[in-house]
């Protein structure tokens, strides 16, 4: 009896220790975010102090003269991210609709697997492929074609080197596609079947069923998926750095070389001479961190609203 009680006692201590340990692991996630934020602010305070908010309004990036402004990078990042979404969103939704609503059951899993394999290819391999395959294609065929037929739009002015905004947006689109389509699929799956059956029972065609029964119910979550893709596109580094041209000026056309927030850090961080230069680069990192956190938070909330809300209703 005594031994039994002693064992119970030690068991209770072990129980509490274990629970505390697991709580510690969970809290470490907060700690990581706080630590990253703290250290980035600490290391960029030189630049924060020197330029203040002007850092994000100034378009002059000249390390030699000690003048740092992030506008060209902000431009490049936003332009490449939005262009890539323009390409990726319709395709990703098409794939998601095809897999979820149209595809024969036997093909579903293989096609889903293939699209998600795209997510498994590392960024640096995309970059390698882009340099040696995509860039020559853009320079020799796609570029001249766009120039002759769509030159009047003014989007395709200037020399076409193959590298630049358009090429990096295409490679970026391939990379964010699996993210958007896999979340969009999750969201569409959360739409209860009664919605589909109801619409079909009214005599709708399959496309009308998808449009009215599925897309309309899942639209908030789909917006969330797109924003999640945006977050990925904003921070993508290696492949973009390898083909965007790395030129710190506001791009004038889709052929112009540009520079993004992430790629300027990748390229110049180890070469940064002087504390101010380094701290300006870390400030760019801080901006990237904050922006992606906000973007991801919004996206997660939207996705959550659809998937959680619907499962509750379906039950």
């Amino acid at each position, binding site marked *: 009896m005594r031994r039994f009680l002693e064992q119970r006692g030690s068991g209770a201590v072990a129980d509490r220790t274990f629970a505390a340990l697991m709580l510690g*692991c969970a809290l470490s996630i907060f700690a990581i975010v706080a630590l990253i934020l703290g250290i980035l602010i600490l290391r960029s305070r030189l630049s924060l102090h020197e330029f203040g908010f002007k850092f994000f309004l100034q378009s002059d990036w000249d390390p030699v003269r000690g003048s740092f402004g992030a506008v060209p990078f902000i431009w490049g990042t936003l332009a490449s991210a939005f262009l890539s979404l323009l390409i990726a969103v319709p*395709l990703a939704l098409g794939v998601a609709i095809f897999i979820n609503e149209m595809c024969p059951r036997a093909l579903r899993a293989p096609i889903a697997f293939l699209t998600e394999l795209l997510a498994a290819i590392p960024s640096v391999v995309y970059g390698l492929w882009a340099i040696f395959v995509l860039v020559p294609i853009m320079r020799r065929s796609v570029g001249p074609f766009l120039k002759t037929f769509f030159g009047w739009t003014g989007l395709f002015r200037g020399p076409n080197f193959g590298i630049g905004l358009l090429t990096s947006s295409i490679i970026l689109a391939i990379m964010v596609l699996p993210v958007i389509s896999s979340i969009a699929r999750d969201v569409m799956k959360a739409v209860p079947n009664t919605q589909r059956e109801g619409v079909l029972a009214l005599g709708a065609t399959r496309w009308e069923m998808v449009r009215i029964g599925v897309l309309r119910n899942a639209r908030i979550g789909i917006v969330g998926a797109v924003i999640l893709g945006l977050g990925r596109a904003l921070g993508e580094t290696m492949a973009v750095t390898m083909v965007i041209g790395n030129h710190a000026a506001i791009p004038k056309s889709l052929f112009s070389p540009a520079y993004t927030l992430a790629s300027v850090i990748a390229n110049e961080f180890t070469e940064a001479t002087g504390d101010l230069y380094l701290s300006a680069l870390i400030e760019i990192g801080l901006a990237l961190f904050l922006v992606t956190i906000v973007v991801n938070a919004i996206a997660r909330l939207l996705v959550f609203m659809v998937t959680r809300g619907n499962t509750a209703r379906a039950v």
Partner: protein
Amino acid sequence: MPHRPSRINVGRRQIANHLFTGLAVLSTILVIAPLFAILVYLLFQGVRSLNVAFFTHLPRPVGEAGGGMANSIAGSGIILSLASLIGIPVGIGAGIYLYEYGGDRPLANMIRFTADVLNGVPSIVMGIAAYSLIVVPQKHFSALAAGVALAIMMVPTVTRTTEEMLATVPNAIREAALGLGIPKWRTVMTVSLKTASPGIITGCMLAFARIAGETAPLLFTAFGNQFWPSSLNEPIAALPLQIFVYAVSPYDEWHRLAWAGALVLIVMIMVSVTLVRVVTGRGMLKGGH
């Protein structure tokens, strides 16, 4: 007279139906095409450039033929083991807390949300953070800093999949164990965790596959090295890093090595991802039906 639907309207709806079905098929083809374009080209270039020396030799200076990436492969192995050693236990612990203790409490929900948001933070930011935390105080680049940067990236993925997998364990098993008077921590470790272990291993492998190809966080933590790794406290070579350096170089011989390296890297990742899928019959991220 009964109302008759106009023929034209039905026709238009049929056309729209066929049109959008066609578009969905077309976009699926357009999405899968680049995957094959990349893999086939990579296989073609990589197989042509691979040889035994690639796996056994150190890199040679420019102009000298031959040489390999043996030290990069070893370096990647070291960095990835270090990252897994730190990231996986923390991630599994956090997952256990979320499912077995946290439940629906506000704190647990906040942790879930933070993990998801952390998952979306660009990898290059992890690189800067590890640089500022470890490289700057130590005053030199190191394998340790690279391992920490990648470990941070593993935590959210491992946490969320662990929680998801624990949720699939039937509560009756837990109750049976607790009913026998087994303390909760033993129940969690030997009953819940053990039952869910295939799924949890899957999650860890996926997190591993995801960080195996990461390059951006290594740029200013591992930094790269031309020699064999000898300590965790010095700059170290890594496969993705070396691929990047060779890819942007102007030399054909180095391009050849970059292709070979990319093939080795991708075979490593694909094999682990496919193995996981075959073994557990689950989708890669949340895929599969």
